[in-house]
């Protein structure tokens, strides 16, 4: 394996940068640019190329953590970043207008990669009053015949990020 890397993806504001920052041993490298569009209400900056973090394994191997840009117009980066990746973490923000549509976008765009590797889906801000319950995400996956792990998580907490990785690794290793 030329490079060991995990990829975090999901819509803008779902917490990809935060999740990488929670476990990276170096300060996360971000390619933030000023946001000029609808994001302005919630975020001043948005990731245009990637976020990057790193964890050194005990044999010196580097586990690289990449975050993709959120907006669909940066889909060119999605395909570049997943090359040679070990697995995918999709972060969804349940306070966005249509989180299930978001899920569909990322599942479809990363379908080949997920099929070759593995995925874990995390729903953040799961208790948001306007967001669908977690059962709706499970129903959606079941309707598509997909048995993927979908979990509620608060990615500001390191333990939750580690739980996602735990699930992903189990899935990669034993599924």
């Amino acid at each position: 394996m030329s490079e060991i890397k995990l990829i975090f993806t999901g819509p803008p504001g779902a917490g990809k940068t935060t999740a990488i920052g929670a476990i990276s041993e170096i300060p996360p490298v971000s390619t933030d640019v000023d946001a000029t569009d609808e994001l302005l209400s919630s975020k001043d900056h948005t990731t245009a190329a990637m976020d990057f973090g790193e964890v050194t394994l005990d044999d010196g191997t580097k586990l690289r953590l990449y975050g993709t840009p959120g907006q669909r117009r940066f889909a060119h980066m999605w395909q570049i970043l997943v090359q040679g990746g070990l697995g995918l973490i999709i972060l969804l923000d349940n306070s966005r207008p249509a989180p299930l549509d978001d899920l569909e976008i990322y599942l479809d765009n990363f379908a080949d990669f997920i099929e070759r590797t593995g995925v874990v889906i995390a729903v953040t801000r799961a208790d948001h009053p306007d967001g669908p319950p977690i059962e709706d995400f499970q129903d959606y996956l079941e309707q598509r015949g997909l048995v993927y792990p979908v979990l509620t998580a608060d990615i500001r907490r390191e333990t939750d990020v580690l739980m996602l990785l735990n699930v992903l690794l189990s899935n990669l290793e034993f599924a």
Partner: protein
Amino acid sequence: MPETLTLPDDFRRVCEETLTRVMERTQGAYGAVLATIDGHAVLSVTHRDLPSDRIAAMTSSLLALGETIAREAQQRQCKFVIVENSDGYVVTLRITAKLTLSTFSGNEANLGMLLSASRNAAESIGKAIPQRTHPK
């Protein structure tokens, strides 16, 4: 295109004239795309069918990476990125904190000329930006 990117008529005219001038005066140039720093196409003048929306997003990624590489190399402020290909060039440069310009040419172009024309165009557009015209 988001509403915030609607340009006042006067400014739009200046941009169109400036981009057209780059194309006319630079041998081999076949396209110029004005975009926001976060990847929205604002305006384009091209002689070929270029996907300006996709290009705008990609050049945004490119400049963001340039900026990040500069920081890692303990340098500051990425001003432009040149992509040299077997049959042409792409020059992407920053006009202001929020606007970028990308120009495209075949390999018959002189890279120095293309870069110079692009920088002059960027300067002209930068000067013409009215207060509060460009995205907040």
